[in-house]
């Protein structure tokens, strides 16, 4: 187990290093670093000072090491626009994005698993086919377009749901959250559903395929021979078996939810870090962009790492093998 952990940890480290190099090369080497990193409104003296401070006169590899050291300390410089630490800005916006992503994940699971089970149990039925048709649409329709259609229908035409912002927020353990107030919930519903759309389709497919495969297994036949009710067979015997791969995939998808939140946050004016990224790109606020990219990449690597460990904890077969070793 320890060997496994260490190896995964090292792999994660390598991926992080590669990504940091990519961002570094992109921001520092391809563009003119002076343009990118120094406020265009500063005078020559300030430019020289900043260049010296950033070490742009030093050789390339040394610059990268300095960048790396500062990045490890969470120091990406100050935002040109807001004047405060770029990392602080990201951290400030992160709870909103996380709330949105978690809500989307919940929706994907709560809708996707029952629908997938249904379609898996009745693959030939009209309802089963309809569910699969919807999941194909969910895969191929551009998320932002569906978001627009949702706004058009529920905000503009029907006036049921608000189209932007987080609504009333309350503090939960020091973080602002929308889901505890009715108003906040109404604001959360549509963006979360929009973000979840792709994942719902994914969960439906996984669950359906898993169910169909599980139904052919001998243990299901044996469970029927034991006289168990179909509710127990599907709800315990089948579900518990297919849940392991589904949980793994859903866990891995959490990172991509955060990445895709960029789109949803922009449509629904959700004040998360994705919206901040787009604003920063448009305003050429490079320190914030760099801070965002490296934060999300780190989150990604962290999630992959945690899911790997979770997977080995979830499956009794793997779990006990590890104990034995």
């Amino acid at each position, binding site marked *: 187990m320890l060997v496994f952990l260490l190896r995964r940890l090292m792999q994660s480290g390598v991926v992080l290093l590669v990504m940091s190099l990519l961002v570094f090369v992109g921001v520092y080497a391809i563009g003119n670093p002076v343009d990118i990193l120094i406020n265009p409104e500063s005078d020559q003296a300030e430019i020289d000072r900043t260049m010296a401070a950033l070490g742009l006169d030093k050789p390339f590899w040394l610059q990268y090491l300095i960048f790396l050291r500062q990045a490890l300390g969470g120091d990406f410089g100050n935002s040109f626009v807001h004047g405060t630490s770029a990392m602080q800005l990201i951290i400030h916006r992160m709870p909103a994005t996380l709330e949105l992503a978690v809500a989307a994940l919940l929706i994907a699971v709560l809708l996707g698993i029952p629908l997938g089970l249904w379609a898996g149990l009745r693959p030939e039925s009209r309802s089963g086919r309809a569910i699969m048709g919807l999941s194909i649409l969910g895969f*191929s329709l551009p998320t932002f377009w569906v978001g627009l259609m949702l706004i058009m229908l529920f905000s503009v035409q029907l006036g049921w749901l608000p189209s932007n912002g987080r609504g009333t927020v309350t503090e939960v353990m020091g973080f602002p959250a929308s889901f505890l107030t009715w108003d906040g919930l109404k604001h959360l519903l549509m963006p979360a559903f929009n973000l979840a759309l792709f994942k719902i389709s994914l969960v439906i497919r996984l669950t359906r395929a898993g169910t169909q495969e599980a139904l052919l297994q001998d243990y299901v036949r044996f469970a029927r021979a034991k006289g168990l009710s179909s509710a127990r067979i599907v709800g315990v015997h089948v579900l518990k078996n297919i849940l392991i791969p589904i949980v793994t995939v859903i866990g891995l998808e959490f990172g*991509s939810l955060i990445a895709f939140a960029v789109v949803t946050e922009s449509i629904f004016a959700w004040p998360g870090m994705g919206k901040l990224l787009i604003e920063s*790109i448009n305003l050429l606020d490079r320190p914030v962009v760099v801070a965002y990219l490296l934060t999300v990449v780190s989150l990604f690597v962290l999630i992959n790492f945690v899911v790997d460990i979770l997977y080995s904890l979830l499956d009794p077969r793997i779990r006990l093998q590890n104990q034995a070793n």
Partner: protein
Amino acid sequence: MKKILEVFSHSRIEQVALLVLVLLVLGALAAPFISPQNPYDLAQLNIQDGRLPPGSTASLSEGVQRYWLGSDDQGRDMFSAILYGLRISLTVGVSSTLLALVFGLSLGLLAGYFGGRLDTLIMRLADIQLSFPAILIALVLLAVLGQGVGKIITALFAVQWAYYARTTRSAALVERRKEYIEAARLLGLSTPRILFRHLLPNCLPPVIVVAALQVAAAISLEATLSFLGIGLPITEPSLGLLISNGFQYLLVGMYWISFFPGIALVLLIVSINLVADRLRDVLNPRLQKQ
């Protein structure tokens, strides 16, 4: 041609998809000839015709008698704008896919044929890249590169190449063990000749299917990025940019400026997906025999 129609004769939905796709592509190609107005010639626009709902009669704009799909805030005929937007969306999607196809295919062939360190290096790179969502990769690149047609093509290229490399490699791994490659080697043919004349054609079918699906994904991603304002510049109004322009008006009930380009985009993406799906069945040799 007859064969193509035969292939599509099984399913009504796929027939419709093929028809829609052909119409959209023809419309995009013929945009300058069939659109009532050149939407980017400012002389042809009249600001007084701005934001007219679908079906309105034109007052002053040249060429346009009636705005069947309404007009945008500049008095631009939406139907014309959509035809021109389709041109741009298709150009960006197809060209980035072709570039990535050539690059990924070559790397995949090399990796599959030679194996060893080269294979490990290429595939590791592809694996790392594929573990991140496409949109994140594109965001990194666009944040670094800035806006522009060339830049978004670069970003879409970077997002796609790994799919082709991986698909080609797995096909090449299977093919290189077959006798005809051995025979070609014994004949003393040069390595490039073996790679491109013998190995390549046999690895092509699965890659073509992936590419067909990827065109739709690339168009969708470009539209998304342009909608966010970080894709194409305002001078190259793709469908995504048109939708983005109409977004503020959608909130106040003037739906058509966003809605119709959106419908065009969705029709394009869904029809490509359906046709690509059919293509997969046709090119799959295992299914073909049945």
